[in-house]
């Protein structure tokens, strides 16, 4: 992982981490906070600094529930869950996928009301 990946994460997520005013509302709102080593609000500054190696190795990547509460409540439209999701994607692209969930299993787990975005990010998470 490199500086270049920080660019890629920004691009995939469409998030501008410079918009963050460090209010901490994402971390205040996060239900998986206790299980994360890098907290949602820190995630933003890691991307900003280009410290992607640490992010890629972080537990948080796979602990984020993709509940999108931080996206919903972020007052600056920074939306950390999008960053986390993009980081997952970057890691999977580079390191491959070791997960045991296969696409064939998905239809059985489907609920019509589940938003597609949630499915996609959950799929990334559980395929590890």
């Amino acid at each position: 992982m490199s500086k270049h990946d920080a660019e890629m994460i920004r691009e995939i997520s469409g998030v501008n981490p410079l918009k963050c005013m460090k209010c901490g509302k994402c971390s205040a709102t996060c239900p998986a906070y206790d299980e994360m080593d890098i907290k949602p609000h820190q995630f933003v500054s890691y991307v900003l600094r280009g410290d992607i190696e640490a992010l890629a190795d972080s537990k948080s990547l796979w602990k984020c529930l993709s509940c999108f509460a931080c996206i919903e409540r972020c007052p600056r439209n920074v939306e950390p869950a999008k960053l986390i999701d993009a980081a997952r994607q970057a890691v999977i692209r580079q390191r491959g996928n070791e997960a045991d969930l296969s696409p064939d299993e998905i239809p059985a787990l489907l609920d019509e009301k589940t938003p597609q975005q949630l499915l996609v990010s959950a799929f990334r998470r559980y395929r590890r």
Partner: protein
Amino acid sequence: MQRIGVFVCHCGSNIAATVDVKRVVETVKKEQGVVHAEDYPYMCSEAGQALIAAAIKEKNLGGIVVCSCSPRMHEATFRKAAERAGLNPYMVEIANIREHCSWIHKDMEEATEKAVILARAAIAKVHLNSHLQPGESLVTKRALVIGGGIAGIQTALDIAEAGYEVDIVEKTPSIGGRMSQLDKTFPTLDCSACILTPKMVDAAAHEKINLYTYSEVESVSGFVGNFSVDIRKKARFVDMNKCTGCGLCQEKCPSKKAKSEFNRGLNTRSAIYTPFAQAIPNVPVIDTESCVKMKTGKCGLCEKVCQAGAIDYSQKDEIITEKYGAIVVATGFDTINLDQYGEYAYNESPDVITSLELERVMNAAGPTKGHLERLSDGKAPKEIVFIQCVGSRCDDHRGKPYCSKICCMYTAKHAMLIRDKYPDVNVTVFYIDVRTPGKNFDEFYRRAVEEYGVNYIKGQVGKVVPQPDGSLLVQGSDLLDGKQIKMRADMVVLATAIEPEAGVRKIATMLTASIDTNNFLTEAHPKLRPVESPTAGVFLSGVCQGPKDIPETVSQAGAAAVKVIGLLAKDKLLTNPCTAESDTLLCNGCSVCQNVCPYGAIGYEDKEVNDHGIRETRRVAVVNSALCQGCGACTVACPSGAMDLKGFSNRQILAEVDAICR
């Protein structure tokens, strides 16, 4: 063909660092009609102006072009200089080679080329300029203040003290505004009503001030010095001349279920009511929505008990038309609607309140008579959480992108007052930043921390969840300690963003005063003309222009008053001669120009014309030059090219375009 002089300003290095001014001078010398060209470091200086005056006289110049900053800065300076040298001031053109050129370019070659082109366009225009003469209009020596809060009251008092008549139009039944709803004021903690009510009394008693309460501005026409305003005096159903303010009607009124606007809906009031005890005027109004008599025709108790016979159910709204020379907007603010902020449970729990609601709770005349208690069960709270920046600094669809400015200080005030009166109550404040610029402001906030033990936590709250036991779970960030905090609270107070009062957009439209995306009125210049609207004769006072606290509001109110006084002190105003005129031979009387004119300056008359030997009577547009503000909308709209704007004629503008494209 004019004899034209061109003067190129260096503006120190502002222009000269990017534009080769010497080359501009040499190049423009070759332009047709240019008989003189020179450069100077500061053309706006006295020496620079003297240079221009000397050249006008010596070279017998018929028109000049000054290549300098924006005409908004120094057009007036150079016009006056030219006039002193005997040249008609409208023979001066400015080529803006600073804002439009040197400041926005880096490459000298390109910037110099552009500066020459801009100068060439201005030269082409001057050739077609004519000797315009400004007209005169009279000034009505009376001011209108829209809004009767502290901003409007102070502006009115200051104008009245200078000897001019002032009318205050206030939409609620009493003057006083938001300040009358506050309990104490920072940073001195004096009682808000104690310092406001004397001003309210002064305003009401002043022989030069006339109050129109329970009234709204209906329409505005005219222009600076000569506004004509229709004011709707809403029916009070109580005769202001007969009512003694005894209050018996309010006591006897059987309908007491209407939410009290003054107490932010936290308790109820009668259908016939004065908003608060010190209301001015102390004359109630009947709220037709909740009055039994109005709804069913039965009741009439207030009429029966009124010994003065002041109740009049047949009263109707009344429209008053009044003339004014100046209008001050002082419409104030409200807190934003919190429906979008479900995470704070404001609509779920009565124990989650806004700071303005807390003001009423803390106030002796409020719904709890000043006792700090939970609105759900009346119990005394032990743990209170304040949440800052609720809807402020929000760059999303839910809130406002700006800082509301007053919240940090009033929260410190609330926290301090609670800790002072109820030392066993814990107070926690979740903040993003504490912003306390202002005299004695930071000291005030530090006192809350150091002397009163208020617990400030850096971090925002993510959610407030009402618990089955009636308490509130607050989950927030402590960014400095790197923790997610989950705590129980008995009350949560939201420092809710403020926004301009809802009706301000309508008022701005009536006044043709510009307004920004947040509905704050725009200043004529953000630094140098902060209390004037870009629309001449319209002035700004208080929060309608941007968030501010009481001392700032009072200062700005005074500043607005000075500008009004300066205007009203004049007997006559020079009018802008750059007005529209219609060519009767081209006009076909289609009314398109009349429909687009924002000033109502265009009328029609039947005129006899001689069109190539054919004499006939035609309906043609006629511009009232006293009303025309020279905006040019009609010239663009006119399908037959009959409308033209003096000083900015179609020929002049095309000549500029041609010069640029040459």
